[in-house]
């Protein structure tokens, strides 16, 4: 029962974080700084979350680094989400067999 309450608090707090801007921001933001900040933030956040976490997610950090490089190269050539993700997984699998 206590677990259920914990989960409700977790889900409720998370929903509030997401819905408050939706409720409060009804028109376009005029501030150039804030607009720029919001333009850059997703790329920064995703990049911060990717590295070095990708190295820590694998059994062997070097395999994770190789997966990152493989993903970057593939994405530079215009590959989409799924191929990049698959190649990253394969890179880790193969390298961990060899290393």
């Amino acid at each position, binding site marked *: 029962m206590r677990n259920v309450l914990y989960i409700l608090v977790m889900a409720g707090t998370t929903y509030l974080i997401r*819905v408050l801007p939706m409720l409060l921001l009804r028109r*376009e933001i005029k501030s150039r700084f804030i*607009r720029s900040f919001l*333009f850059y933030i997703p790329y920064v*956040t995703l*990049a*911060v979350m990717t590295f070095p976490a990708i190295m820590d997610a694998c059994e062997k950090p070097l395999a994770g680094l190789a997966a990152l490089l493989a993903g970057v190269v593939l994405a530079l050539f215009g590959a*989409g989400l799924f191929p990049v993700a698959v190649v990253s997984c*394969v890179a880790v699998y193969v390298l961990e067999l060899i290393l």
Partner: protein
Amino acid sequence: MDTKIHRYRTFLLGVRDGFPIGAGYFAVSFSLGIVAKLSGITGAQGFFASLFTMASAGEYAGFLVVREDAGFLNMMLMTLLASCRYFLMSCALTQRFDPEMKFRHRLLLALGVTDEIFGANIARPGYVDPRYSYGLFVLPAILWSSGTLLGILMGNLLPANIVSALSVAIYGMFVAIIIPPAKKNRVILGCVLASFALSFLFSRLPALSGIDSGTRILILSVIIAGAAALLFPVKEDAAHA
């Protein structure tokens, strides 16, 4: 244009784009399920926790609170810390809403603000189309919840090297989201490189490595994006591109 068939197609397009996101989520939430099990979370609890929370770092932090039975206030603070980046993403998303869009869509779209779903929504040009977003949400939500469930029920059945390989899928997707715009825009490229470098330093320097990953993500996001916004403010239309 906005016929029933067109709306249905837009929804299906979203479902299609949601598949790779969902596949990555499945791998991640499977390992999240292993964490949940250690906290005494049952399969059903884990399934619904994931369905209604849809946050990797947030749930990870949350399950740690459950394990230590650290109290409800603590749960709120940890969740806030681990997931506050969604606040920023929701802000950014509102800037892409059609002013004519019905209010209920705001309440529903808020459920699906995750890093990857947000990224896929933003990657589409023009106003956010709620039908596309709902389609996008379907498979990730199902796979994220059932991955957690399966992780709790049978976490130790897969060999370690398979789990290791599957666990980078999510980062591969992050890369696929950030690299194409970084190729076109030098400031974004600079942001990405600075983020990699500082994130690495923060996680490895002895004085800073005690900071948990949720807080690190928050601090670095605000600093780097703030600096970029000050030094390289975007031109009027670029923020919509």
